[in-house]
């Protein structure tokens, strides 16, 4: 290291292999070195862009696998992003023309009662939706086609400026037994494109979050599409068998693994500050 450099490096920066926290950044005076400052700005810029980037619906529709007939393009009552961010209640309601569209579909398909409606929603990160939904739905299609029971699918709905609970109204209008929402999650600084999946049995307006199951952090650096679909299939099959979702339906696909990780890290006490490593 150059002794004349105004940047003072931290010898403990090598600990970064043990955590994604921004430790050992070094300092210029007592401030962030330029390179570290710009790294942060880039991460924040990506997270901001993820919030404000509009969903490219035509591109998304072109990338998605065929799914339960012609896709329906819908809008929430929040007309633009600024309104969306300030009125979470409007993001949970359909715009009138979208509601009429679904009512029309229900009338035209009077005898249809789908097992599952999939609703793709931009949420707080359109990038998550744009990047990961096509892979996810292809993988889901694969496992559903090999599943024991057959799955009658409602047409895919793509919604702009929506929140999770909007799926309740959509699912109810489509007379679906269950609704799956694929939505862009609130972006973190290091996770701008995280997709969230919410499954609700017998969707109708007024369902609470306690009545849904959630699979979070679906992205290549988090939970892979393949692993997400494994969990999802379990939840789909169990919700159909037990006729419920939410706190009453526990995701037992990796109970063993979870407990082991939590216990393993803490009980071995691998804390180098105390000299036990």
């Amino acid at each position: 290291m150059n002794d004349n450099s105004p940047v003072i490096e931290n010898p403990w920066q090598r600990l970064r292999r043990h955590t994604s926290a921004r430790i050992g950044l070094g300092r210029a005076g007592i401030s962030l070195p330029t390179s570290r400052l710009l790294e942060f700005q880039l991460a924040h810029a990506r997270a901001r862009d993820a919030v404000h980037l509009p969903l490219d619906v035509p591109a998304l529709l072109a990338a998605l696998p065929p799914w339960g007939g012609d896709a329906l393009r819908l809008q929430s009552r929040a007309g633009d992003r600024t309104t969306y961010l300030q009125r979470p209640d409007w993001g949970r309601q359909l715009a009138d023309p979208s509601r009429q569209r679904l009512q029309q579909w229900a009338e035209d398909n009077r005898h249809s009662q789908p097992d599952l409606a999939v609703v793709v929603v931009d949420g707080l990160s359109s990038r998550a939706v744009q990047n990961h939904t096509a892979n996810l739905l292809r993988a889901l299609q694969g496992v559903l086609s090999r599943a024991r029971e057959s799955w009658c699918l409602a047409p895919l709905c793509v919604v702009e400026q929506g929140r999770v609970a909007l799926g309740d109204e959509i699912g109810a209008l489509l007379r679906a037994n269950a609704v799956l929402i694929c939505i862009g999650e609130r972006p973190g600084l290091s996770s701008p494109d995280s997709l969230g999946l919410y499954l609700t049995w017998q969707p109708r307006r007024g369902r609470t979050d306690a009545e849904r199951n959630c699979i979070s952090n679906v992205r290549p650096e988090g939970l892979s599409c393949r692993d997400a679909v494994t969990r999802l299939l379990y939840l789909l099959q169990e919700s159909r068998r037990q006729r419920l979702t939410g706190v009453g339906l526990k995701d037992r696909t990796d109970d063993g693994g979870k407990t082991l990780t939590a216990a393993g890290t803490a009980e071995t006490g691998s804390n180098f500050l105390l000299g036990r490593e």
Partner: protein
Amino acid sequence: MSAKYRYTLGDRTYRFKDLATLMARATPARSGDRLAGVMAETAEQRVVAQMALAELPLRQFLQEPLVPYEEDEVTRLILDSHDREAFAPIAHLTLGDFRNWLLSSSATPAALTALRSGLTPEMVAAVSKLMRNQDLILVAQKCRVTTAFRNTIGLPGRFSTRLQPNHPTDDATGIAASILDGLMYANGDAVIGINPATDNLAQCKRLLQLLDEVIQHYQIPTQACVLTHVTTALEAMAQGAPLDLVFQSIGGTEATNRSFGVDLGLLAEARDAALQLKRGTLGNNVMYFETGQGSALSANAHHGLDQQTCEARAYAVARHFQPLLVNSVVGFIGPEYLFDGREIIRAGLEDHFCGKLLGLPMGVDVCYTNHAEADQNDMDNLLTLLAVAGCTYIMGVPGADDIMLNYQTTSFHDALYVREALGLKPAPEFEQWLLRMQIMDEQGSAGLHRGLAPGFAPALARVLDADSDVGESHPGGSGK
């Protein structure tokens, strides 16, 4: 007309149906009050409401509870504990005069201390609505609040930090790495406080153990906290866990607190249990509370009040339990409550002012989420304003990025910036430790030694040796 409050301006009479409405209409604009439907309809109506409020006698707040006494234990706490004797010197004032008095030379630090128990949160919230940012700063600066556990927090000329070493899976090595980073940047005198990834009792006990061992091993004059629900803390204490501070999120109405799963009785029980452990060496402030504007509305428990008034009422709850630390988590809850940097900055200054005037050791989590219209510059502005106002402490996380809670708060570097820019120092006992450990040098307020403190070299060598043993010898630290 049934409107209780009227104000005539020119040929127009404005009506406000009750005190809660008048307070809400007088509140500087913010998205949470718009969402609740209590915000002023026009800019003019807001100022007229402020004019009406300025003429209101302070006494009115003792006669017109904003949430009914019979329905709400927070209201009962506020009115039953009101000290009429302390209130006497200002009992004759209107709110407008009260603002003038607070800014005058009569309002000395000693006078403000004597006044505390005579003030209700509603009086304090109301006067803040008549104040500009600089007023909020100037008056807060005159409030002296000192608390103690293993060090002394809140002395003039001091500026403390909570070291917040969160990790998404509570990994012990990851947490230890962030603690080391924070200590080397002279952070952690307010508390070393972890938000656990889950509320699991066994996990919380292990984290308490970890923090206690680190504090004991390096003899750090500070305290630890695992920010878990108060019921989990009670169980952990019953099972003998080494717990310094009891944490709880609180709100300003009984129903908000119920949504958090707490009431005053439960908080009292937890405080008693922590006091019995007698772990403090310099003082017995054993509680740590977090609050934030918007929590009451999000629990649908705001009783038609504006969110800032609800927030101030939470400080009455906090005050009752003589906490070591209280902070508003000002930008955490999202843009539906505080939309942008401007609203977050205003709210941060209000919360700090109200807390301090009521006698709380008030810190602020200067923070924002990525869907708010805010950035690091807004945080720098709020941080600087709060530091000038005499804010007791802020958070410190590595590089301002909390990888568990997914939000940005202040960094270890940010705290050093404040100390350097304003000549502030950490808590005295912690400062002595930093000097002894050769983390800080005697030069200047934020002077750090260049290298790793010798006392921590063996620990670092240990972990790096272990890494090369398993063949991970490639240099780390290349960033994200």
